[in-house]
């Protein structure tokens, strides 16, 4: 006799701790196997794009902090680059170096957080997360030194950065750079060879290069699938063309590759920060611009390689003090398009790890 079975639908989230924010997944299960997934989002919608239309160009910087709250510096950078393109200006060299340095420190911090939560999702409860948070703390201290805040930095300005580096910054940065490579190695040693981790990540959550490209996936998730696409190399902005670094590429596009690739990216970011520190030119850190900007009518798109992928701001100006339209291409949101295909066929226990390996930030998804 055969039993008649029916798929059951389970709601995961929006308050579930492993959905990394207020994200809801409506999942149809056949036993333990995922049959269908419907992501539901919008719980964190704050209308940042609309709010930007009634803020002046300088004030919008404060909104960008709150998009990807794990990596506010890169959001700042993408926005100011878009405005600079709109106005046809460029920041002085020192300003660009400081910006790139901050963006790379931010990348390390963001990847640390991703790794901590990824391991936590896998059951390594607490310990790795505490280690990564300790390392991230040093970076946030550096941010507090330069701009007075740890998360809501509002540091970058159109035409440079808000303030020059303070005197205590360089020694603190040197201490940090001496420490961090060992800490990344520790993190790798902690779990990379672990049998449980390998069993749960190798060949799990495969994303083929073709599917990734078709889904417009960017960032580490795309590179782990073996596609060599990094805006810092393929469309260099600011001073990235004067810096030496490698873009790590994965092979299989599984959870393991996405995890290891981020470790490797952090090492490359350390290299970049070190070069920035050594090559840091003198001169002004900021152009002399009024606080109230009036870019000429027109439109511009500025994009950066944020820790999660390509982050772009599309701005339309009508010549007034506020953007006429501000559209945000957020990598987290667009990377989610492949989630359904990645999850179908896997078990419930893999769901959270596959989702975690994409490194999605809800603040950026819902904007």
């Amino acid at each position, binding site marked *: 006799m055969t039993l008649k079975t029916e798929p059951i639908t389970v709601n995961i989230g929006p308050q579930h701790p492993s959905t990394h924010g207020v994200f809801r997944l409506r999942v149809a299960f056949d036993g333990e196997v995922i049959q269908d997934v419907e992501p539901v989002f919008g719980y964190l919608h704050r209308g940042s794009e609309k709010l930007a239309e009634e803020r002046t160009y300088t004030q919008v910087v404060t909104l960008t902090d709150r998009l990807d709250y794990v990596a506010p510096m890169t959001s700042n950078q993408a926005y100011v680059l878009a405005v600079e393109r709109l106005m046809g200006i460029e920041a002085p060299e020192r300003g660009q170096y400081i910006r790139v340095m901050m963006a790379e420190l931010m990348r390390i911090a963001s990847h640390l957080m991703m790794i901590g939560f990824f391991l936590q999702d896998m059951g390594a409860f607490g310990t790795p997360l505490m280690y990564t948070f300790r390392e991230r703390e040093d970076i946030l201290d550096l941010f507090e030194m330069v701009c007075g805040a740890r998360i809501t930095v*509002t540091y970058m300005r159109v035409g440079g950065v808000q303030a020059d580096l303070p005197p205590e910054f360089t020694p603190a940065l040197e201490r940090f750079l001496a420490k961090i490579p060992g800490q990344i190695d520790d993190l790798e040693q902690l779990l990379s060879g672990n049998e449980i981790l390998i069993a749960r990540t190798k060949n799990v959550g495969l994303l083929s290069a073709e599917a990734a490209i078709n889904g417009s996936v960017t960032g580490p998730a795309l590179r782990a699938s073996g596609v060599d696409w990094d805006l810092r190399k393929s469309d260099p902005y600011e001073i990235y063309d004067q810096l030496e670094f490698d873009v790590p590429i994965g092979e299989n596009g599984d959870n393991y590759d996405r995890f290891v690739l981020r470790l490797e990216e952090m090492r490359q970011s350390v290299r970049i920060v070190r070069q920035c520190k050594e090559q840091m030119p003198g001169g002004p850190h900021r152009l002399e611009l009024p606080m109230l900007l009036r870019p000429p009518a027109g439109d511009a798109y500025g994009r950066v390689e944020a820790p999660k992928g390509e982050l772009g701001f599309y701005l339309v100006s009508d010549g007034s003090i506020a953007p006429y339209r501000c559209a945000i291409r957020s990598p987290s949101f667009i990377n989610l398009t492949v989630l359904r295909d990645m999850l179908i066929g896997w078990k419930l226990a893999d769901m959270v790890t596959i989702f975690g390996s994409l490194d999605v930030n809800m603040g950026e998804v819902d904007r």
Partner: protein
Amino acid sequence: MYGEGILKGMAVTLKHLFKKPVTVQYPEERAPMFPRFRGYEFVWYEDRCTGCASCAKYCPLGTIRIETETEPDPNVGDRYGLKVFDIDTGRCMFCGLCVEACPYDALFMGTGFERATYTRPSMVVHIDELRAAKKKPSAYARPHLHGINFEDETSLSSEEAGR
């Protein structure tokens, strides 16, 4: 070898067992704030403020409320008298744009961070509170203040704060 990865990982945790903890036991110990810290208790010097309201205009949230009147002293011609200067810190996000915008260096970010209250209205800092408050300005957007260490009782006068 099976279990090698676990042993390696355990070696890392063991190493950490003998390290000094990085946590700070908060109420007894305090982590130092950096000079540029954008903190609570805005510092405002009434003698410098002209009532131009640039700070209120540049605030992205409309947190600062200013009402002016004609200057009561007939010998002073270059400023307004201030009736209301309220900062609603319950809305404020401590972005520092107001401090950057002030053309007369009258407004500074503060250096405090322990101002939890029970009600929303009590988060509004009124003009009298601003006048009476201990002035411990932060070096945010005012680089000449860099390196000042504030003791509990220090309060910088307008002259000491410099420009």
